[in-house]
């Protein structure tokens, strides 16, 4: 007999989400908060297979806080401490402040709410590809395919990751989305329930958000909890309260037939902050940069992508915006590598006014595929290498560094340097040591001008600033020419000469003068 398969759903619920977003914005916006955050105890362990994040943020959870509406006159969301102090949603600001003088008021951060909702979906995608963007701060996961009874470990991992974004949330797991959501609302911070759970039955009727009309009727009947409602016969409820009543009964009994409106996590990875105080030094900006990169890296890892480019936007006090796209040579999600690249750029930035806003966007790419053979190995740290390359270019000049490449010409010393890629594809891996004849030349760049004395058209004496002496043996001449049809015309005759001190030089005669082009060494 086949085993009965029970479907499971999980809901991650962020209570008073908008208020938490507003608090996050405030935390980032204040330089003193940034400085205080330097004292945060942060430990992140991230691996390809498993990621666990723990972050302890000293958020002032014990203080009453409330979110203001767009006009700033009424309270639209409160935290539990404020609710306990008697502040209700909808009261005016002055009334709320009269209740408790410690009340912290926050303006809503709509843009941040949107970005963080994207982040939540991206984090959830790591645990299930079947997601529903249920509400602000709420995401429902269909756990089909996730085997095993123990769902707690990953739920706690997800909570820890979401916590690292500054959010306190709860996870509930149940046989359908409705039950999972009800469980999430009362979880601390994790709760797995069945439809017949007594815990759910004891929930107040308000938890299902019935219409006021229906709610009043049920209250008049003396129905206060979901359990009380489900003890009434379903058919009788249907006869008296219609379809809405039936739907409410089903939801209360955990028999809701709602299906998920599946969605994919957005492909945008943005972290942004509008600073309330202007920044004039680099240190707080670097702190924000690191924090944003940690978050973006976590989000990108959750959707199994890498960061190929960072778009960095600095908003200045005078209204100007500095936007810079930083290419990541070898796409990665390693925070240290990304931080090095971005901070190196920030070190060089000079702004005309203080910074009042900062935005970081990560542009994702798919992981590359590279299969090395037994003797091959890639660069240990490609991003570090390209940083080193930039430093070397600053020291020597761009055109002085690269992989030598011979040009398709017989013209002597025709070589160019190309930008290193160190890509194994397209290289002849089976190349063996080639048989070489002769001795390589060390070139003088530029060639050394010399006076040459000839005897029967053969050099017998050389006199130059650094090389002088009698020619003991001379071989040549070897005449080469080319490009006679254009301005790059060249025509040269070369001699190999051995001087009396035993040194071997290559001597050339071109454009009417003698030069030593190199020494055989």
């Amino acid at each position: 007999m086949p085993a009965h398969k029970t479907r499971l759903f999980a809901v991650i619920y962020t209570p008073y989400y908008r208020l938490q977003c507003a608090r996050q914005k405030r935390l980032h916006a204040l330089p003193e908060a940034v400085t205080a955050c330097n004292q945060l105890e942060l430990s992140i362990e991230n691996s390809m297979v498993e990621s666990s994040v723990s972050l302890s943020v000293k958020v002032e959870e014990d203080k009453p806080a409330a979110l203001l509406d767009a006009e700033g006159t009424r309270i639209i969301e409160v935290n539990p401490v404020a609710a306990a102090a008697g502040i209700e949603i909808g009261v005016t600001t002055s009334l709320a402040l009269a209740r408790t003088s410690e009340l912290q008021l926050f303006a809503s951060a709509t843009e941040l709410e949107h970005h963080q909702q994207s982040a939540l979906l991206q984090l959830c995608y790591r645990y299930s590809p079947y997601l529903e963007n249920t509400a602000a701060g709420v995401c429902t996961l269909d756990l089909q395919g996730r085997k095993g009874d123990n769902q707690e470990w990953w739920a706690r991992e997800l909570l820890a990751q979401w916590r690292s974004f500054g959010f306190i949330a709860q996870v509930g797991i149940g046989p359908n989305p409705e039950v999972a959501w009800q469980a999430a609302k009362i979880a601390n911070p994790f709760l797995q329930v069945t439809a017949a759970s007594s815990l759910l039955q004891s929930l107040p009727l308000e938890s299902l958000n019935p219409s006021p009309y229906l709610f009043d009727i049920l209250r008049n009947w003396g129905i206060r909890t979901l359990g009380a409602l489900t003890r009434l016969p379903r058919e009788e409820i249907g006869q008296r309260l219609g379809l809405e009543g039936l739907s409410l009964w089903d939801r209360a009994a955990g028999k809701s037939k709602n299906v998920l409106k599946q969605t994919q996590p957005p492909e945008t990875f943005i972290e942004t902050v509008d600073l309330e105080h202007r920044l004039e030094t680099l240190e707080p900006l670097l702190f924000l940069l690191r924090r944003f990169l940690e978050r973006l890296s976590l989000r990108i890892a959750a959707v199994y992508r890498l960061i190929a480019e960072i778009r960095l936007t600095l908003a200045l006090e005078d209204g100007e915006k500095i936007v810079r796209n930083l290419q990541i040579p070898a796409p990665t999600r390693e925070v240290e590598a990304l931080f090095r690249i971005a901070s190196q750029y920030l070190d060089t930035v000079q702004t005309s006014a203080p910074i009042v806003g900062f935005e970081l966007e990560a542009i994702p790419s798919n992981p590359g595929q590279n299969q090395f053979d037994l003797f091959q190995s890639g660069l240990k740290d490609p991003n570090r290498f390209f940083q080193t390359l930039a430093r070397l270019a600053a020291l020597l000049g761009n055109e002085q560094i690269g992989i030598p490449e011979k040009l398709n010409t017989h013209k002597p010393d025709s070589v160019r340097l190309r930008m290193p890629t160190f890509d194994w594809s397209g290289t002849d891996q089976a190349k063996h040591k080639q048989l070489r004849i002769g001795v390589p030349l060390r070139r003088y760049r530029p060639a050394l001008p010399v006076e040459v004395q000839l005897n029967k058209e053969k050099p017998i004496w050389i006199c130059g600033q650094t090389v002088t002496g009698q020619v003991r043996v001379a071989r040549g001449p070897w005449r080469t020419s080319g490009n006679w049809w254009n301005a790059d015309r060249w025509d040269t005759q070369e001699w190999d000469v051995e001087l009396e001190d035993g040194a071997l030089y290559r001597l050339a005669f071109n454009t009417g003068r003698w030069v030593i082009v190199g020494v055989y060494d």
Partner: protein
Amino acid sequence: MPPADKIIQLRKILAERFPQGTLPTSTFLSTGVTGLDHSLGGGLRRGAVAQVVVPHPSGGSALLLHDIIQTMQHRFVALIDGKNSFEPLAETPFLLWLRCQNATQATRAADLLIRDGNFALTILDLKQNSPRELRKIPATTWYRLQRVVEETRATLLLLTRYYISGSSYIALQINEHLQMRDLSQISSVISDSLPIEFLYRKTFVEAEYASA
């Protein structure tokens, strides 16, 4: 006897009295030049600086350089060319060539590259740089490079015309005078028969190897 020679003599005596312990093969990076590998005891040591001195203008240093580069087909090699004198012969897709104008630039570039840690071998070729230039490099530079090399487990090969660095674990001298007839010989035959002499080799205690 000049002080430098005294130090060399002293090191020779120490090398004889405290012979070198056997190192695992993975500690060495083969250069592909039989004679040189033999003299080095298996190859260039990882995490150390080796110096090859070629006093004669046509002493075979470029020959050695090309052979080493060609051997390292599947490894990343950086060539810091102190006087922009390298002449590429074959296709070398894994060679990073840095064309410097003077020795100061070259040592700075070497510092950056060794710290990078991505290269199996870094060759600092100062053969064409004048003694005056080389004398301007403070001794501390060589010790700093040695420390960085130890830390990153990189390998630095120093090619010079004169003995300059006291921080290298080994210094070899090639006393070759190439002749006109060598220009038509097979290069590997010439390089394998290069006369290599020890200038000095530092002695190491076994414990130091163990920690390496």
